């Protein structure tokens, strides 16, 4: 029961929060408006059909998000596949990642997704803000101490503008250079320093302050790469290798490692709660990588512990997510030369259980993957509050199930299509805008919006339908009326369409029309980046 007093307290808190946001926003001046600076044609690639210029929209926003995370990530950072020329060859990852699964999931956990990227990455780096690799330094591979990277300017910022990373940060004295302290997210104990117009981040959770300042004073920037001149390295440091920024927080936060783009194999197990929301999660990943990669979490956190796993040296990293206080455990080790394996879970699982799970990992072959995907799909369909609206198969391979979730009144699609695993879930009401920027009114024809999901191997759109809809027609980039399957189940009607694979994070523009039997357009919605 929510009484008036509670609501009054809520209102008070809400208004204070709003005041805080307004004050924080007002701290930054209104940027000069320049339509030329604001426009980036993300599709200006020769292998794509010419399209009208578009605003940066979500693609740029994603790039911005990546840039923000880089601070975070960069130093963490990560993967040793970035720079074969400058990394010592005997430490460069050249191995092959096998497909690891839990021998037996803990009670209550069920397989939920399978990502087998193999040769195709799920994330298209060309559509994101280009960020340079991270150079990793330390006395030896087992103990990396600091990393350096060029931090990109904010998207759309005028030339020469400092990135917002340093906004409001206290300045720190670095001989001959402007520098600021950075200590947030996964960047612990860092210094951002201006180098020839670029901003370079130097950080290491356990690095000595004097050492950081010394490196900040000599680090060089060449394009998107930061380097400490070898002859000037402080005593006790050597170049251990380079890492890729896209592998955000892997090693510290293995639960998000799939986002990074160069995980070759990931399976996830979820423990659903009574409300259908995940209460626990375990991720098992494998990727090509080297020993530098397995130890690089030490740059981002001091909350690490050396452990032995499967007879190898492993690193157990702990992370706490604020403000919830939810914690994660990530265990990383080099299973064999060139192959990095990782097992991550929420800390409620317990370190001993996580280690036991890692000890019990087994590998499967490529031929076993379809069965695994089918298991994941069926597990999703049997969850609490889930109704199967219909089933079908894609022409290009793989089955699908259209699901309705009663708790959120949303739809999702589960597939066995390669790397389709668990697709994105769209739901709720409205939210779309038409070509004139006007909101599309809610109607029952395309109930609750439309969903779009998929990856490099295929994409699909889906949703629920009102009773009056007889046909769904889709038009869009390079697509003219793809087949749309209409299904009915348990009192619900839905539709699913197979679409060309999307590239990277760029969602093509599509128009979805719901038609009545007499051809009347009942509702139109759009999908686009």
């Amino acid at each position, binding site marked *: 029961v*929510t009484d008036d007093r509670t609501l009054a307290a*809520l209102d008070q*808190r809400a208004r204070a*929060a*709003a005041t805080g*946001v*307004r*004050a*924080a*926003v*007002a701290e930054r001046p*209104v*940027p000069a408006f320049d*339509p030329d600076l*604001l*426009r980036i044609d993300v599709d200006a690639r020769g292998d794509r059909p010419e399209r009208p210029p578009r*605003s940066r929209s979500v693609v740029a*926003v*994603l790039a*911005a*998000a990546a840039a*923000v*995370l880089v601070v975070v990530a960069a130093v963490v950072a990560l993967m040793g596949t970035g720079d074969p020329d400058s990394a010592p060859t005997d430490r460069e990852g050249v191995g092959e990642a096998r497909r690891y699964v839990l021998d037996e999931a803990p009670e209550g956990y069920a397989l*939920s997704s399978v*990502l087998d990227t193999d040769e195709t990455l799920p994330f298209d780096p060309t559509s994101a803000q280009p960020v340079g690799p991270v150079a990793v330094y330390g006395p030896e591979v087992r103990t990396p101490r600091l990393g350096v990277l060029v931090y990109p300017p904010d*998207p*759309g910022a005028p030339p020469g503008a400092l990135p*917002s990373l340093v906004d409001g940060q206290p300045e720190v004295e670095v001989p001959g250079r402007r520098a600021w302290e950075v200590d947030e997210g996964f960047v612990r104990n860092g210094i951002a320093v201006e180098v020839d117009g670029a901003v370079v981040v130097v950080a290491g959770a356990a690095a000595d302050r004097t050492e950081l300042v010394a490196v900040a004073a000599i680090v060089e920037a060449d394009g998107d790469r930061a380097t400490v001149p070898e002859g000037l390295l402080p005593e006790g440091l050597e170049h251990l290798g380079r890492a890729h920024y896209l592998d955000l927080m892997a090693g510290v936060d293995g*639960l998000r490692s*799939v986002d990074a783009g160069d995980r070759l194999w*990931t399976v*996830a197990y979820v423990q659903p709660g009574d409300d259908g*929301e*995940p209460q626990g*999660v375990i991720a098992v990943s494998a990727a090509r990588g080297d020993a530098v990669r397995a130890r690089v979490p030490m740059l981002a956190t001091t909350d690490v512990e050396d452990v032995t796993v499967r007879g190898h040296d492993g690193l157990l990293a702990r992370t706490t*997510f*604020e*403000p*919830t206080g*939810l914690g*994660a455990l990530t265990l990383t080790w080099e299973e064999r030369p060139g192959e990095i394996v990782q097992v991550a879970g*929420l800390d409620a699982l317990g370190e001993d259980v996580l280690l036991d799970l890692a000890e019990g990992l087994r590998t499967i072959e490529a031929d076993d993957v379809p069965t695994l995907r089918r298991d994941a799909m069926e597990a999703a369909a049997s969850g609490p509050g889930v109704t199967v609206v219909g089933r079908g198969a894609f022409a290009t391979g793989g089955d699908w199930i259209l699901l309705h979730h009663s708790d959120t009144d949303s739809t999702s699609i589960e597939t066995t299509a390669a790397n389709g*695993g*668990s*697709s*994105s*879930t*769209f739901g709720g*009401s*409205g*939210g*779309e*805008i038409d070509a*004139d*920027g*006007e*909101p599309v009114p*809610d109607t029952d024809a395309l109930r609750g919006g439309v969903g779009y999901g998929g*990856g490099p191997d295929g994409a699909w759109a889906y949703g629920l339908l009102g009773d009056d809809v007889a046909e769904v027609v889709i038009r869009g980039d390079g697509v003219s009326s793809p087949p749309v399957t209409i299904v009915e189940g348990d009192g619900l009607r839905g539709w699913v369409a197979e679409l060309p694979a*999307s590239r990277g994070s760029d969602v093509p523009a599509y128009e979805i029309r719901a038609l009545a039997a007499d051809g009347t357009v009942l509702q139109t919605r759009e999908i686009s980046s």
Partner: protein
Amino acid sequence: MTTDDVATGGTGRAGPSGFDEMYRADWHPVVALGWTLTGSRTAGEELAQDAFLDAYRRWGHVGSLDRPGAWVRRAVANRAVSHRRHLRVVEAGTARLATAARVAQSAHDTAPPDTDPAFWAAVRALPERQAQAVALHYLEDMAVDDIAALLAMRASTVRVHLSRARRTLARTLSTIAPEEDA
């Protein structure tokens, strides 16, 4: 900014030369709206840039509206929804890790404590229309009729959204004090 200001987009009726005025007057509140609905200040600024750019390109139409500032806010509110959906697309393969992803996101998008990030995180967890209505209501002290006009909904629908949203927020936030999320 008062409700009346919002109702006129902060600039009143804008003519062909009114874009700059609107941009200067509405930049901050529009960024605030995008920030609170996406959970990322950077994303909020990006959405604001895109919305103002679109308004600029369509100024012949937008500038003739009674409330061009409302047009920009609507674009940001709707794109914030698309933004969050799109993030889920990018996280294809981890969609079932929603809980972990959400908390991870909140961990990486740090915000000043005075902004009460936990409150806005709870707002974003609401159904999309409820979140939009709540953000407009509290950020800009916007009246129900103005929210309804901006989001192209009936006023009665907005009242229902706000009522449900406030009950949900009161329930979910009752165990999270503002200090805890700094």
